């Protein structure tokens, strides 16, 4: 049980969530962030920070995006910790409302 970053983060990676996390549980990939489920305390402060509503509690993951639960767990072990907000990716604005971005995930 933890919070999960969903596909709307891909190619945007706004990172506003990072600043509010009290346990530094976000991990940074090339074009997405994920949450380390072993560190997340389910405090939910990050949810309203995300401009693209990419973060939800595990039990609220919408149908069709269940794969992101395992993906967050897997990628969080490979990617490094991010503790400070960065500028969003340059293409964030044009991708923020695009659905079905899993195909663009870079590892």
């Amino acid at each position, binding site marked *: *049980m933890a919070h999960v970053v969903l596909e709307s983060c891909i190619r945007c990676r706004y990172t506003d969530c990072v*600043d*509010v996390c*009290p*346990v530094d549980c976000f991990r940074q990939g090339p074009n997405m962030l994920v949450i380390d489920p072993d*560190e997340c*305390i*389910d*405090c*939910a*402060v990050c949810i309203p920070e995300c401009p693209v509503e990419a973060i939800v509690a595990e039990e609220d993951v919408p149908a069709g995006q269940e794969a992101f639960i395992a993906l967050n767990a897997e990628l969080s072990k490979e990617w490094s910790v991010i503790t400070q907000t960065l500028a969003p990716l340059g293409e964030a604005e044009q991708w923020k409302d695009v659905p079905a971005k899993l195909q663009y995930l870079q590892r």
Partner: protein
Amino acid sequence: MWRPPQKIKWKPKPGAWPTREEASASRLFSPLEAGPFRLATRTWVPAMVPWRATEDGYVTDDNVDWYARFAAGRPGAIVVEATGIRDVPSGPLLRIGHDRFVPGLRRIVDAVREASNGETKVFIQLIDFLSIRRRPEPAKYLGQYLPIVERHRTALGMSGATDDAVRQALLGLSDERLADVLDEREMESLRMGARERVTDMHLPHVRELPQVLPGLFADAARRAREAGFDGVELHYAHAYTMASFLSALNTRDDGYGGSLEERVRLPLEVFERVRAEVGPDYAVGCRFLSEDCIPGGSSVEDSTYFGVAFARAGMDFLSLSRGGKFEDAKQPAIGWSAYPYTGPSGYECMPAHVSDEQGPFGRNFDPSARIRAAVRAAGFETPVVVTGGVHGFPQAEELLEEDGADVVGFARASLADPDWFVKVRTGHGKAVNMCIYANYCEALDERHEEVTCQLWDRVGLDQPGVRLTKDGKRRLTPMPWVPPAA
């Protein structure tokens, strides 16, 4: 942060809120008088370290604001955070190890009196702790810190080798092989950071603790009285020196470890010196553990013995916590110190909303009730303060009615809403900002960052006069509560 494997999500259920009349007829909001220990209501804010002191241990404006804000909610008493009795560098933890700290501490006392119109009593928690180091870089530990001894040479088959040669060899070993060469303590120092124990009798300053601590605690208590505090709470709980004397893991062979009588000996000697220093008309109590909650640690039966011993010695109150030990703490990241609330015992101390079948609300009730019953059975009326996930009025009232406690402590619930007390008392319970037990506060505490609550720390940041955290992102105290017009 350790979590029970069941991972059951719990939500606070405060139950019905009382009307103003029901509240004023309740036990919770009734006074308690027991010698020098007198409270206007049986509500209590236990000691919490908010990391607002200076690096030199002085009180800051932020400390004063913090306690004034709690006092505005009118709890029966506030216990000011763990304050170090020695005059040694201890980071931004308050200190009371020298007379120069008294004026700052007096500001807290004055602020609490003023904000509560004299109603809220203010105690201070006095703490001693042993040294704990940050987890080292392995290269630094093996290359510099580790004292090289003959045992290492033998294990490596390098008799006669220089220290440098031995260090070079150690640096080339796998973790597995390293565990064969280093002893258990050395491995722990490498993995967790070196941590002193009360059983380190080879260290003179540890061996002499029984000679040194009574005087240090007594001087600190005298200063607390001079600063105007209504009493002192001796910190005999969690991972620190005095709790380590009480622990069943204390095997000292100098008369201060081993049997229950020997383990409680120093805590009693400290209390006696404190009592002699401040006199019989000053409230002196302690916070101790109902259970250590670690393998080989003290059981509730042990703590029952301690509770009766403290009551018999003449303590004015007993405040119970549980767990919070270093022994089962999680490995910290390199450069960080172990934190005693990260393992299963830490979970018992500050259980979060992701829990097991028992849940995070009231895990300490049954053990505390057993200790209280034993104190009463021994003929003592010493008030017992119980904490641990209390957030609702019926829950607190029941605890008092069913002889579970004499005073109810609200730690995280009051951090989430310091006005819990005044709101519930005046029939505005519905306005309580309810703690969700996510332990956001604990995560900040672990990082020694200014402790705030996620329920209020980003609200109204643009209002005039709002004091912010160092990074300017969070407010340091919640917005004032304005009661609705009648």
